[in-house]
């Protein structure tokens, strides 16, 4: 119901949960997991990067 036809979602539930919480677009995150899958750690480090960018902006 929630996914686009023909487009594999391939995001694990833990990854989807984190992306939702932080309003992230997962397609912007590069995956390091099995077969290029985005792992939770990838999302976490993406969040960290975003936050450090934010911190450095006045």
């Amino acid at each position: 119901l929630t996914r686009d036809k023909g487009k594999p979602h391939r995001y694990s539930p833990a990854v989807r949960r984190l992306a939702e919480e932080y309003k992230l677009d997962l397609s912007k995150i590069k995956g390091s997991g099995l077969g290029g899958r985005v792992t939770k750690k990838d999302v976490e480090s993406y969040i960290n990067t975003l936050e450090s960018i934010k911190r450095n902006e006045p």
Partner: protein
Amino acid sequence: MSENQEFDIAIIGGGPAGYVAGIYAQQMGVRAVVIEKQYWGGTCLNVGCIPTKAMVSTVEVLKLARQGAEMGLKGDIEPDFDAIVARRDKVVKQLVSGVQGLLRSNGATQIFGEATIKTPNEIEVRTQEGTQTVRTRNILIATGSVPAKPPVEGMDLPGVVDSTGLLSLKEQPQELVIIGGGYIGIEFASIFVNLGTKVTVIEMLPRILAGYDEELTKRLQQLLQRDGVEFHLNAPVQAVEQGEGKLLVRYSENGQEKVAEGDVVLVATGRIPYTEGLGLDNLGVEMNKRAVKVDDRMQTNIPNVYAAGDVVAKMPLAHVAWTEAQVAVRNMLGKRTKMEYFAVPSCVFSVPEMASVGLTEQAAYEQGYEIKVGRFPFSANGRALGMGESQGLVKIISEADSGEILGAHILGPHASDLIAELTLAMEMGATAEDVDLTIHAHPTLPEAIQEAALATTGRAIHYIVK
């Protein structure tokens, strides 16, 4: 509890949605109170999932024991209705006290009483000791559902019962007429026919278990017929009447007026959300017919009021109820979380079991998917043969292009165990090939899943795909 204490979350209803919300909120570090007016554990523990499954387990053993001769066993085993009921009630009691214990050890407050919401931050609770007011930042409505009463004459006759009534019978019915071929009706049919009751199921629709895969439900119907259940489909019930010492259920079938007789009539025509006395009108909570209307974060139109479980009527299942409840709690705590329903397993605990997740073949077609279907029968599975339970099959629906699993449907031994792998598969975005390439232990039932996944490509190892 002092009158003036304020909670972070007040939960109305101590069923699966409510008690899990209480446990979870405490674990998340906030103060929760759970208010329950009738029985801790709600429908599920007291008059739903648990008592029915305790009975089914007995029936499973009974059925296996009866096949004993084929398995190399001799002797006889017979059901003892009083003992089955007593044992069922013992299991319920144990789990109900378990739930209270869990709430306690997690530090949640329990109030036994009936709640009315006065303002978005105040709940009035009528307990045996009097009325008290609970102050709270957030409210979770988890008041569940009650059996629906169809607008048919004779629903109040003695001997006409809903599922709760059937579970409180002290004597085994001799002839049970079940109105409604949904999962509740079917589970009871399977239980009682194996205990020796004559069972008739009358269903308005052309098929039983609407919503489940039709190929499987037809097979299940055949298996239940073999056990002795009589089915009438396309058969709306007109009235129930008191005959001489029997109840008469009048229904029509193929344009003909017919009558089924029984000493007990089970009305199993669905359940409706329960919000009576909650004060939702006053509060201005938006409804969706009889259900509380929520968004995909389980939030109502009133920002700090959430709802979860049967009362929101999305998928009236215990595991959905407590998942929704946890989603609600997270959102209350500021953790944006969405409730997703695309991989929700559901089981029919007949003997044998049926279990399903995701889209049926039919639904996938209707939604415009190009699909592949893989089937594997348990009769080609070594373990099932060894168990003497080779009825049924596994059916997997994958998307033709990506190979991702869209749905899976299992009829057969331990179907309720087996569906878990495929649910995880869907959540992980696994393809049928991923499932096939995962090593499955031999000789086990899950091999049938692996082979069905492979069969989406048109071949299997231990079966000739036609």
